């Protein structure tokens, strides 16, 4: 049955390493952002927002669990979602740079979330039609959740951008600062091209066009200015293991308990 744990049926012509890498990229984005957002728990600007961010973090970690579980099955080396989350080092993480950036103020967190939520919505919308049945099932489920997240982050962007001078300036600054991490979201490499050719992954250039048009619409309605285009940073991307200095610190905090007490149960 489609989507049932333990019944992986990769369509023919997908090299297992391509599928594994593609799933790690999807899973790690959500794991890392989920952990970042969870750091707001107890620190939200108002109680309702504290609860909202904790809920969003929970959804993201849940999505990561499904994706990394499937990645572990595809890999076939006996690693489950916990092994992949807690016992890989920084260079083996495949998330993008955007999600590992520190939370900053509430404006930075909302802008990071908004840019990622739009990316997630167009990504899962495409992946819901993936030729890989388990991945398509996870995407269709996650799409419902990320549409809800986008409503939250998009509404906040409108409120803050079209709010006070202070709130407007802060989210504009956040947008300008985080914009340089966005070309990486759509930089296709051999893994992306192989996944697209096999019908399991999205067409990143088509996704980029869809992404930019949604982002521009909301940014302009929020009375903010679109930042100027920036080129993709040269060299390896974070998807190939070249991360910013922030990921290692975050992982140290996220992984310490599991590594200090391997196999602990409570």
């Amino acid at each position, binding site marked *: 049955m489609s989507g049932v744990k333990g019944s992986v049926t990769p369509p023919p012509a997908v090299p297992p390493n391509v599928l594994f890498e593609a799933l790690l990229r999807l899973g790690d984005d959500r794991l890392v952002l989920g952990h970042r957002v969870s750091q707001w728990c107890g620190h939200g600007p108002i109680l309702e927002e504290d*609860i909202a961010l904790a809920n969003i973090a929970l959804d993201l970690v849940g999505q990561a669990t499904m994706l990394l579980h499937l990645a572990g099955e595809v890999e076939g080396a006996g690693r489950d979602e916990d092994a992949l989350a807690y016992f890989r080092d920084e260079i083996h993480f495949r998330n993008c740079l955007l999600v590992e950036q520190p939370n900053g103020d509430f404006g930075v967190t909302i802008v990071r979330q908004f840019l990622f939520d739009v990316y997630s*919505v167009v990504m899962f919308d495409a992946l819901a039609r993936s030729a890989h049945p388990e991945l398509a099932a*996870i995407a*269709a489920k996650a799409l419902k959740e990320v549409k809800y997240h986008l*409503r939250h982050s998009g509404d906040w962007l409108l409120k803050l951008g079209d709010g006070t001078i202070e709130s407007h300036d802060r989210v504009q600054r956040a947008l300008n600062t985080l914009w340089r991490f966005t070309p990486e979201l759509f930089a296709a490499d051999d893994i992306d091209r192989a996944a697209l050719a096999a019908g399991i992954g999205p067409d990143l250039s088509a996704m980029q066009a869809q992404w930019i048009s949604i982002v521009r619409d909301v940014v302009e309605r929020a009375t903010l200015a679109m930042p100027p285009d920036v080129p993709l940073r040269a060299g390896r991307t974070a998807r190939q293991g070249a991360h910013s200095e922030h990921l290692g610190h975050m992982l140290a905090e996220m992984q310490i308990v599991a590594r200090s007490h391997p196999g602990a149960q409570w």
Partner: protein
Amino acid sequence: MVAPPRTALPTRDEVWAILDTVMDPEVPVLSVRDLGIVRAVDIDAAGAVTVTVTPTYSGCPAILVIEQDIADAIVAAGITPVQVKTTFSPPWTTDWITPDARARLKAYGIAPPGRAESGGLVQLMRARPAVQCPYCDSFETEVRSEFGTTACKSLCWCRSCRQPFEEFKAI
């Protein structure tokens, strides 16, 4: 309490009836069957039961408890072996919550979900239909937060009876 071993093979109706008694740990007036999360009950020729469930939200912390409660309830009725499997497709929707269960939700003080929207990818500043207060039935209510105390609920406020209440999110 574990029932004595049985000789007759279990039937699907019997298992479904047991599932009526397994309550959601977070919303104890709803059974797992009311929620629509049980997608299939299969029994093989040897009498082994497989229950297929789908999670409400990907990150719902109750899912493992629910799976364990389902297995425990069936075993307690003397039916073994039991396996609980997870499926993600088709994705869960609150439209699967039965009318009777909606009435019980309201009586419990939780506004039942409206119809799930399947529309566009971007739904900002949406004009959503007013939620009816589960206490005084007024539509003079407002959503205070799209996210509530559990993954499946949002926080609302009734201007008529001046009470906070929760709404089951339509998804």
